[in-house]
């Protein structure tokens, strides 16, 4: 399954919620969708899930257009909205059964599908509990189960980890990785960027309806931070006052500074330059016990590329 978002644009009156964005992701991929509040993430997700119609552009799900064949496209997408199920007087099993029926699953096939999903999302033990009596984490599992009950190829999850405790988050992350293994194409939006770095293959950073960065996590990291920060820790008591001066005179080194008990500098060269610097320092008898490159994570990139603007 290939999901292609093509020149998508959505206007609400004067407001341009989504402004000509394009990206794509495949089966087995978990794609992060990152942006400040009001960036256009939910609108894009609702368009992919056929709930909204774009003003221009299209989304193709294996070639099926959400504009031209919304009914067909809807069968391929499981949408988990950013709100939790809150239906009164209904149990978990009945809730899943309703959606299985709504998607046209019949007889034994429906029973099997519901049982499989209950087991997969680990809600078998609470299947007869009322939805209202569930915790947030459990409700999120039920919501995910609802989206999965008819076995869609694409999963669109809008802030699924919001408000979950650490255990529930870890469990959700494991479920998503399992789903990716099952060849689902997953688009997930979240403000918890450290988690996205761990589970996502690719990422789209969006602000004011426009894409700021997109690509695989590694590509985005490389693209947005060509300079690496290197940290050096010397053996205790071996601090040399000239080290900072010497480093600043070394090629490919900029902005050398003391940070706590370490010395940090920006490396403008490649990895062989880092090797040369390390060799040089050892040759000069500095007792180095740690020489490491500190990588930027998604959070740093997000802070660098976005300005916090909303529409």
């Amino acid at each position: 399954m290939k999901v292609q978002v093509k020149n998508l644009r959505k206007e609400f009156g004067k407001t341009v919620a989504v402004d000509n964005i394009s990206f794509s992701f495949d089966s087995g991929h978990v794609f992060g969708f990152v942006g400040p509040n009001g960036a256009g993430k939910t609108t894009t997700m609702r368009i992919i899930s056929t709930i909204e119609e774009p003003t221009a552009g299209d989304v193709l799900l294996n070639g099926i257009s959400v504009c031209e064949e919304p009914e067909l496209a809807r069968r391929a997408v499981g949408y988990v909205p950013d709100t939790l199920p809150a239906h009164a007087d209904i149990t978990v099993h009945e809730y899943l059964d309703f959606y299985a029926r709504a998607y046209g699953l019949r007889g034994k096939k429906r029973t099997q599908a519901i049982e499989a999903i209950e087991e997969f999302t680990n809600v078998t033990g609470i299947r007869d509990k009322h939805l209202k009596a569930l915790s947030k984490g459990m409700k999120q599992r039920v919501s995910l189960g609802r989206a999965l009950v008819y076995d869609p190829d694409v999963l669109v999850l809008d802030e699924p980890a919001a408000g979950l405790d650490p255990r529930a988050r870890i469990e959700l992350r494991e479920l998503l990785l399992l789903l990716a293994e099952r060849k689902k194409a997953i688009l997930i939006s979240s403000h918890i960027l450290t988690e996205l770095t761990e589970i996502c293959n690719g990422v789209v950073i969006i602000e004011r309806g426009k894409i700021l960065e997109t690509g695989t996590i590694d590509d985005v990291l490389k693209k947005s931070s060509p300079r690496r920060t290197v940290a050096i820790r010397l053996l205790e008591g071996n601090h040399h006052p000239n080290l900072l001066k010497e480093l600043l005179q070394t090629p490919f080194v900029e902005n050398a500074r003391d940070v706590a008990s370490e010395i940090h500098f920006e490396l403008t060269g490649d990895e062989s330059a880092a090797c040369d610097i390390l060799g040089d320092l050892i040759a000069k008898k500095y007792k180095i016990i740690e020489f490491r490159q500190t990588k930027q994570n998604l959070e740093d990139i997000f802070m660098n590329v976005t300005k916090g603007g909303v529409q």
Partner: protein
Amino acid sequence: MNLAGIKNHFTNWRGWEMNPIVIKELRQGVRSWTVTGMLLLFLVVLFVTSIGFLLTQSFEISQNMQLGGSMFSAFMVILAGASIFFIPLYTGVRVAAERQANNPDLLYVSTLSPFRIIFGKFLCSAYIAVLFFSACMPFMAFTNLLRGVDLPTVFFILFFLFLVVCAANMIAIFLACLPASLPFKILFALGGLVASFLIIGSLVGLSFEFMRSGVGAMMTGKDFWVGTATTVGIGLMITGLFFVLSVALISPPSANRALPVRLYLTAIWLIGGIFAFIWVVQTGEAERLTAWTVPTFLIMMPALLVVISNEDQLSLRVRRTIPQSPVKRFLAFFFYNGAAGGVLWVGGILAATYSLAASAMVYFPKKVYSSPESSHWFATTAFYAFAYGLTALFIQRKFFPRRPAKLTGLLAVLLAGGWAIAPGIVLFFVNQLSWKSIDRFQPGNIFNVFSIRDEPDVLNHEVLAGIWLLVMIVVNARWLRRQILNFQPAVSGTAVSPPPVPR
């Protein structure tokens, strides 16, 4: 669905499954303390009433020939109260809660169509009504043993009551679907409560009348069946109207919301017209047509307000369904979303109604109480309504093009209302406000048409409204032409919408 699909559907009847909404709603209903509590209360009231009657009344036939009738009346009031008051309220509140919840589209994420969703809600409310009716049945059957009421009367009254409950449920669903805020919905609910008291009152009065006359005795006459069929037909039409309106309300904004509503209204207009003409031919009295012309007028006036509030720009999904064939496209223009097509549709129906009614008066002149005044009243009000509507469209297009189109309907109401009130306010401040001043000719005041008596003033109104309408048609002609020319199917594969069309 083609013929083969329909055949296949009926051959596989064993695989039919109930509407998922019905199952979900009934499950929720059974679990809900509201339904079970109300049902228990209902049974307790019935039981206590029965005991009360049995303890206080005599069983001697010679002493009380009407004990059964009296008990049935009491049960009927209790059943009407419980079903007309409670079931629509429960249904409406449930639908409103789902629409009002922080995740209103959760229901619509599935492949269930808006039609199936509304039908499911309606069916569920009908099942709950059946539950209450069946709980009441043993008590009512018992009354038949005590004399004073015949079985046909019992079934006839119950049948009518059930239809009224179903219609009330549908209206409650419609009100709950309206895109209004919670305070407005509470207001609707209060209005509904007042209305249900009125309905219960009139139903009880009607049922007493049936019990007094005895339905069994009336069943032999043709008039009884014609009257029953007409009442049932009108009831079903009203229920159907609220059904299609509810479906349109919950359909996504990008859907062709206008199509089912306009098709339905055209269909009931045609059917109503045919029956009205049959009646005219049978009686030879053209005045019978008012049973068709007046409801048409009453429905088309709010319809005009709704159609002028339609967006001009059609969504991609709608544009893709515009027929390629010029003839089909021409017909589709009247029924698809869009203010221009809507105005022409309302105009067409009103013009056809007026022309047919006028022709009927010529061919069936017997006992025509529809004097020329009533035709003037019809034409003048329609002219004014269109003039105000087209003026609002022009103002919206020229001065508020970036504002939502729903402003147009509001603008038309404000214009008509403002112009009607303004002279009164001025007269009040100069101490000249009197009944006489209200009766006087007020040019442009649509409501003045109903209060003036002098025939020259009626004509003045008609001429003025006609001229104003003509001017507005000329002013809007370019826009109308552009809308007709732009009504073209979107080419498949191009997902990009055309640039916004200036209104």
